[in-house]
């Protein structure tokens, strides 16, 4: 059983839901990235999503666009992120997936990408501009490997697509809570709970909900219906706010801890 499946199985035994924390790798430097992964694990995060920066992030709002730009300015590259996970594996076994756009992966070479990821202990990939229809080359390379390609569902997905995606995704289903781009919002979209229930009725894969989640109260409401809560922009914002603070890592950890408590309740 791979780390992601094991995580969901353990959580299920304890009747708990997963908190999945996203931030862009290399934003504020790769050393900070390592510290955040360790800190987040200690503060209750269940799965880490490391963003791979891209010049043209069409599914992202201003917060993640800026963090992606900052990381690229520091020269962060896909291979650095993969080997960073390799280094982290000496210290932690928390599930780590990469989230990034397809072009850098295509340029790296899909087969080489999967093989380097597996070698370094990366557990999977989430690629917002790669729907199942176009994923042939990558899923073929991942076949038989211990590596999850995680696909999305959205409020506009038809029942036919729900069935297809739940058949193809591995690890979990990433449910986008709203029609839109990433970014913290103060309220949850109406009807998200009904959609999650519909997906769960159709699929036996864990369903995790992301986009727009920023407050413990929202995390609590999501974890009441879904198997996991994904928070990204709000964490990046906390990093921006605290980046010149002496307790940079701790302070962001405090925020993440509140989200974890709300999710795990």
């Amino acid at each position: 059983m791979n780390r992601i499946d094991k995580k969901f199985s353990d959580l299920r035994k304890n009747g708990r839901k997963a908190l999945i924390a996203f931030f862009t790798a290399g934003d504020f430097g790769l050393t900070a990235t390592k510290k955040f992964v360790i800190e987040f694990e200690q503060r209750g995060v269940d799965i880490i999503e490391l963003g791979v920066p891209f010049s043209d992030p069409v599914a992202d709002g201003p917060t993640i666009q800026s963090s992606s730009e900052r990381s690229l300015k520091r020269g962060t590259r896909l291979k650095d992120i993969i080997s960073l996970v390799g280094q982290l594996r000496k210290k932690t076994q928390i599930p780590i997936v990469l989230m990034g756009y397809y072009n850098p992966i295509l340029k790296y070479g899909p087969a080489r990408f999967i093989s380097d990821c597996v070698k370094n202990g990366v557990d999977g990939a989430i690629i917002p501009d790669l729907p199942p229809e176009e994923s042939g080359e990558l899923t073929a390379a991942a076949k038989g490997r211990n590596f999850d390609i995680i696909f999305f569902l959205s409020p506009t997905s038809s029942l036919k697509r729900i069935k297809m995606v739940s058949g193809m995704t591995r690890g979990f289903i990433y449910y986008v809570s709203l029609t839109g781009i990433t970014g913290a919002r103060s309220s949850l979209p109406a009807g998200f709970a009904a959609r999650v229930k519909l997906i769960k009725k159709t699929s036996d894969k864990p369903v995790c909900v992301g986009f727009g989640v920023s407050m413990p109260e929202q995390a609590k409401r999501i974890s009441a219906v879904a198997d996991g809560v994904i928070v990204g922009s709000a964490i990046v914002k906390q990093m921006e706010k605290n980046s010149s603070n002496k307790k940079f890592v701790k302070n962001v950890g405090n925020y993440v801890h509140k989200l974890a408590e709300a999710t795990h309740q």
Partner: protein
Amino acid sequence: MKLPDKKGHFGVFGGKYVPETLMAALEELEAEYSAAKNNRRFAEKFRYYLEAYAGRPSGLYFAEKLTKTLKGPKIYLKREDLLHTGSHKINNTLGQGLLTVRMGKKRIIAETGAGQHGVATATVAALFDLDCEVFMGEEDIRRQALNVFRMKLLGAKVTPVTSGSKTLKDAMNETMRDWVTNVRATHYCIGSVAGPHPFPMMVRDFQSVIGKETRRQILKAEGRLPDYLIACVGGGSNSMGLFYDFLDDRKVNFIGVEAAGKGLNTGLHAATLEKGDIGVLHGSKSYLLQDDFGQIKIAHSVSAGLDYPGVGPEHSFFKDAGRAKYVSATDTEALEAFRLLSETEGIIPALESSHAIAYLIKAAKKMKKSDLAVVCLSGRGDKDVDMVSQVLADKI
């Protein structure tokens, strides 16, 4: 075999590389377009607007003085510059505007570089009572002030894009973000043969009227098909529109002219097919200007309409299949062509179209005098006069 295939692929190119939220909208559009295509009333309506509103057919003009000056092939100009709104872009926006109405969507959005597609979209939005928002890079807003005013006059909201290079690429990112947010009631009117399936196919079909007319007109004038079809390529809609009807006429040579900017070896150009390699951007797989790590490079061209690091997937297919040849012209060469056509024929071409003329200036002597060359004059140069006057002022 007719391309694209069912999944929108032209060989290895094309496809639908978009977020899940947009997949339903693309499926809807595909179904709606395929129904409309086979609907006689839709075809009649489209033709009516092309003729009575946009001014088709556009003329095929024998450029006798330019022919004499260049001492090469016999040159014909396909006068898309004479259409309503000043460029070929109206062919596509009328088609997509009618589709938007058919789908019952009330809002239409578009990206624009030179502003020609933005103006053409704002125009059909006014005509068909649609709310319209056009995303335009801040840098292009500066370069194309006249078109910005035209869009506003037509009732469109023009939203400046300040991210990245502040040009067409970033305007397209921002339009995708709006679409993903408002997808249920909004149609994204892509202005080129680019983007996810079905756009490259649909825009090609709407623009193919250029080539269909050209065939009829050249047969009437010369009794035979042309040897060369020459057009500029940014995303590639006017060139695809001119080429497509001649696809099976193997003796008709297709020449696409990209923007070489300050020179192909300076890194400051937009010659995607000549200098790029295969990647995925804005919904499809195609040639791209990118670095070794798959980050998209910033394109450069004096012409805002060609200033784009990607290109339509079918052009990528044509390149690899050897069906079309892709060449380039620099900023300087395009400006020279801009002046030459104005002086010899009394026609001020758009800077984009000037690239096609510029290539002909270079290549004319290698062609035979008995050859026939058709150049797509995709747009008129009024919008560029202000900027060109700053560059050429001391030379005129």
